[in-house]
């Protein structure tokens, strides 16, 4: 329910674009507590709980031990805020991916995603607005809800909703069977049923976990082969992305480290859809922001279905390049020797002899032919366009041979979806715990149905008499 003023809510309150700064707002009784768990200064002392109302501080958003971003934090104390509640504003660096990560973190620490118009609704309920504004508030809630619903539907591909529908059908069937056996124990017997249920629940949990992972890995857009361009700074990664998309999507310059965040684009190669992520160049660096970017590049590579490994062929192979290779060689990889328009300092033979040594024994034992069969190597000029056709052909061939496949069939969009998936998973965990602890089946059956409800919210299906309908249609009740 959306009106619980006891809950602390959070939302991204700036437009989702690649603007320089983005603001995340957290409001409610636990706003300070939650933010203090993730926002620290350089000495790793928590910040918001030590701040005076109406002040701001420069600090860092931490995800565990890792710095996610540096930020400015503003603190408002009730009733002197927009909502009339304790409010923390986190001003981070813009960019959809980063903002969502921070929001993700805030919700993981106990904030709920705000419902449409909820900040304004709270402002009204906390008497921060006068009566004349009440109607505007109501309009806002209803129009935003409609909008959110539409957006949610638009964001979700048919495959996602179909996958969720399938999971729900399974859960509903199990629940209905158990309930039938409770209501009519003389017709349906639950003896030993835990085992079967456990199997089904694990299977469903795995699918949900997969979907959640697809979100975590940054794939908050539709399906496609997750393709990640990695390489050392200024090897021409952004130029390749621009070449593939045919537009100046990424900022290209000669200054190493220009792309500090990950950038994503869709590229259609005839009937194959690639979701290409351009990452920050990977190198050892002292620049805080750039090192965050490097980390994220590795993360993105970690979750990619296909890696395009860019090597600046106009320079000698560096230690950085070997390090990158040693981090990603287990993935499906295409090596691109870029800048063919300049004098080539690196040839495929060099690649073979240097890189095979930076991986494990299995790789170093490969012959040159075997190595290049495993890691196709293409010489191209990303800025000039030379070699593009060969790259496309290689990707296509890999895809058609089944060598390159999309790891996750189903990717989910939107943090709200993720939040609900997590809630469903938690309910299913409750079922598993119950089974393990030897608790009677009827006790945790409610958790099972709860998972059904949560999944239903993702695809916007209202809960009617689903369970009763399922019981009556699938199970012949007795007397």
């Amino acid at each position, binding site marked *: *329910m959306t009106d619980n003023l006891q809950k602390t809510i959070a939302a991204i309150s700036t437009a989702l674009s690649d603007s320089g700064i983005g603001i995340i707002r957290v409001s409610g009784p636990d706003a300070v507590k939650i933010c203090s768990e993730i926002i620290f200064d350089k000495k790793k002392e928590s910040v918001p709980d030590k701040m005076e109302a109406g002040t701001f501080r420069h600090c860092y958003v931490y995800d565990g031990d890792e710095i996610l971003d540096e930020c400015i934090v503003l603190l408002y104390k009730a009733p002197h805020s927009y909502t009339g509640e304790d409010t923390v504003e986190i001003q981070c660096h813009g960019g959809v991916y980063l903002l969502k990560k921070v929001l993700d973190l805030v919700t993981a620490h106990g904030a709920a995603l705000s419902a449409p118009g909820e900040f304004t609704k709270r402002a009204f309920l906390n008497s921060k607005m006068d009566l004349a504004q*009440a109607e505007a508030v*109501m309009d806002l809630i209803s129009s935003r809800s409609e909008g959110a619903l539409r957006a949610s539907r638009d964001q979700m591909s048919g495959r996602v909703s179909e996958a969720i529908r399938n999971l729900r059908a399974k859960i509903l069937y199990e629940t209905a069977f158990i309930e039938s056996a409770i209501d009519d124990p003389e017709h349906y017997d639950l003896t030993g049923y835990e085992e079967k249920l456990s199997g089904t629940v694990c299977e469903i949990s795995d699918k949900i976990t997969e979907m959640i992972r697809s979100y975590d890995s940054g794939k908050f857009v539709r399906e496609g082969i997750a393709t990640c361009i990695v390489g050392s700074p200024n090897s021409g990664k952004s130029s390749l992305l621009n070449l593939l998309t045919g537009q100046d999507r990424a900022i290209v310059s000669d200054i190493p480290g220009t792309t500090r965040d990950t950038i994503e684009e869709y590229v259609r190669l005839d009937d194959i859809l690639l979701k290409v992520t351009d990452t920050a160049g990977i190198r050892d660096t002292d620049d805080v922001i750039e090192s965050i970017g490097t980390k994220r590049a590795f993360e993105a590579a970690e979750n990619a279905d296909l890696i395009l490994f860019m090597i600046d062929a106009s320079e000698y192979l560096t230690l950085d390049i070997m390090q990158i290779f040693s981090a990603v060689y287990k993935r499906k990889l295409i090596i691109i020797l870029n800048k063919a328009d300049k004098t080539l300092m690196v040839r495929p033979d060099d690649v073979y002899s240097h890189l095979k040594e930076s991986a494990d024994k299995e790789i170093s034992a490969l012959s040159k032919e075997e190595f290049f069969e495993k890691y196709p190597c293409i010489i191209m000029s990303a800025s000039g366009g030379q070699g593009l056709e060969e790259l496309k052909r290689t990707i296509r061939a890999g895809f058609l041979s089944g060598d390159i496949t999309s790891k996750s069939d189903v990717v989910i969009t939107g943090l709200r979806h993720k939040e609900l998936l997590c809630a469903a998973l938690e309910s299913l965990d409750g079922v598993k715990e119950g089974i393990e602890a030897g*608790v009677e089946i009827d006790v945790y059956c409610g958790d099972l149905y709860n998972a059904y409800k949560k999944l239903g919210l993702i695809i916007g299906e209202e809960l009617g008499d689903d369970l009763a309908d399922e019981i009556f249609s699938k199970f012949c009740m007795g*007397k």
Partner: protein
Amino acid sequence: MDLKCRGAEFNIDVAIVGAGHAGCEAALACARLGLETVVFTVSVDSIALMPCNPNIGGSSKGHLVRELDALGGEMGKNIDKTFIQSKMLNTSKGPAVHSLRAQADKRDYSGAMRKVLESQEHLTIKQAEVCELLWEEIPSEEKTGSYEKFVTGVRTQTGALYNCKAVVLCTGVYLNARCLTGESITYTGPNGLQAATHLSDSLRNAGVELRRFKTGTPARMDGKTIDFSKMEEQKGDEVIVPFSFSTDPATIQKDQVSCWLTHTNQKTHDIIRANLDRSPIYAGIIEGTGPRYCPSIEDKVVKFSEKESHQVFIEPEGLYTDEMYVDGMSSSLPEDVQLAMYRTVPGLENCKIVRNAYAIEYDCINAKCLYPHLEFKKIKGLFAGGQFNGSSGYEEAAAQGFVAGVNAAMEILGKEFLVLKRSESYIGVLIDDLVTKDNREPYRMMTSRAEYRLLLRQDNADLRLRKYGHRIGLISDEVYNGILKKKESIDAEIERLKSVMLGAGSETCKYLESIGSAPLSTATSLASLICRPELDYKKLAPLDPERPQLPDDVTEQVQIEIRYEGYIKRQEKQVKEQERLEVKLIPEDIDYDDVPSLRIEARQHLKEFRPVSVGQASRISGVSPADISVLLVYLEKINRQKLGI
């Protein structure tokens, strides 16, 4: 002196229309609260009649009976007096779904209830058909809330006039009833009893909308013609648990009769399929909507065609008769088909049918026209309970009849209505579902309908509900104080068990191993040992020398509350969250057209249902969370306007 008479006239407080399970509870509640009450029945011999199955209770229905008993109802006591077999169902499952079911001696049940009614002060039994509801319009300047009319009395078929302050309709399946056995149709109530044919029109005149529902019952066999050796015996429990909290278990341990299990087979199904065109339902003669949970054997065969066999239970109708009830094979097929079909069932090859199976159609209401306290939203003083509200089952009927009767009394006495929450009773779930959802078939209670069922156990109905029984005046101070004491000793014992720690000494470990439980490695509280599935309160006695002497019903609660503490706490938290909406009341005179930004669909539903609280509104289908938010803001707005902020 003019000695000419023109119809009798009486002044009473409450008129109860119908003396079935709902009517009996309503009548007793009103009379016990000191109101002059008349209960009308078309036949005094049919008071508390069980025209269908010969049992009380069962999954979730047993809960209703327990709750009713805790509130001060009669059904639990009456079945304790008259049962002939008793069984606790679902004992292999968790305590929340344990449910008591008893086979009744039908004649005894009815007779015992009649005796209770007869000996009740302020209660008059009257054999008469109520034909007319009398009411007046409320003058527009006196209108409050949604009421448009108020009741003034009822008139019987003989013209007698009963002036009263409240009327409780408990007409069951009697309104315009029609029974169907194949091509044969009679315009009677159940068991060939007289139907009530006049009241429907009078109700329509008062603006009450009626609809048609249908239900059915199987045949009764002559037990002498049944070969029980071909069936599986179903015995009662060795230790009998009473329904009523005030029945001493020691007084009801007795010899029990058995029920019998047999099965249908392909032959049975073939006969049914071959004669479907003669079934009134499949031939389209029946217009009423039947319940899906209680399908006729025709329905089972058609809808579950893959099933090769269905269970059939043969149950005695009572000790006074040889008649046996054929549970699981209700039907509206013609008599010849019935006989042929029953005779394919092992053990029934030579059976003789005493009473044919039949389907019955009747008028009832869609209970969304009622408040949760079971009064009509538009007619002050008119209450309704039981099958007339679109439910099914004796227990569902009794529970509603009780609540309707109590609230008729509360209105007259100017006291607070009895409205039970979903979070504290199955009765609350039952009534909330009836008045909030668009039910399209006779409503049966099911455990799956209760979202907080770990809290709503049959074993703690007294702890949950005695307080309400006490508040309305049907539970004595003495009983109520007993409950308070019980609660205290439960809490104290739980506290003690959590604080008493056992060391990992060799004696302790030895004992634990001897009863198949793992030895301790560190000091552990008695409470955490109780949580081990293989242990329980009783088994730990040797390790707990300080244990106080406590009655079984207390230690049972202690055991359950400790073992399921995590689950119970979670449900309590959910209850608390929903509670905020439940306590936000919607003014009766709210004009939904005045609430901007509500979606059209939501507006329609809200206008139609007129929920009493935001909580109830949130359960109406077609009302979204955003609509609820809008509603909350609106309520806050008018609230501030009132306060002049």
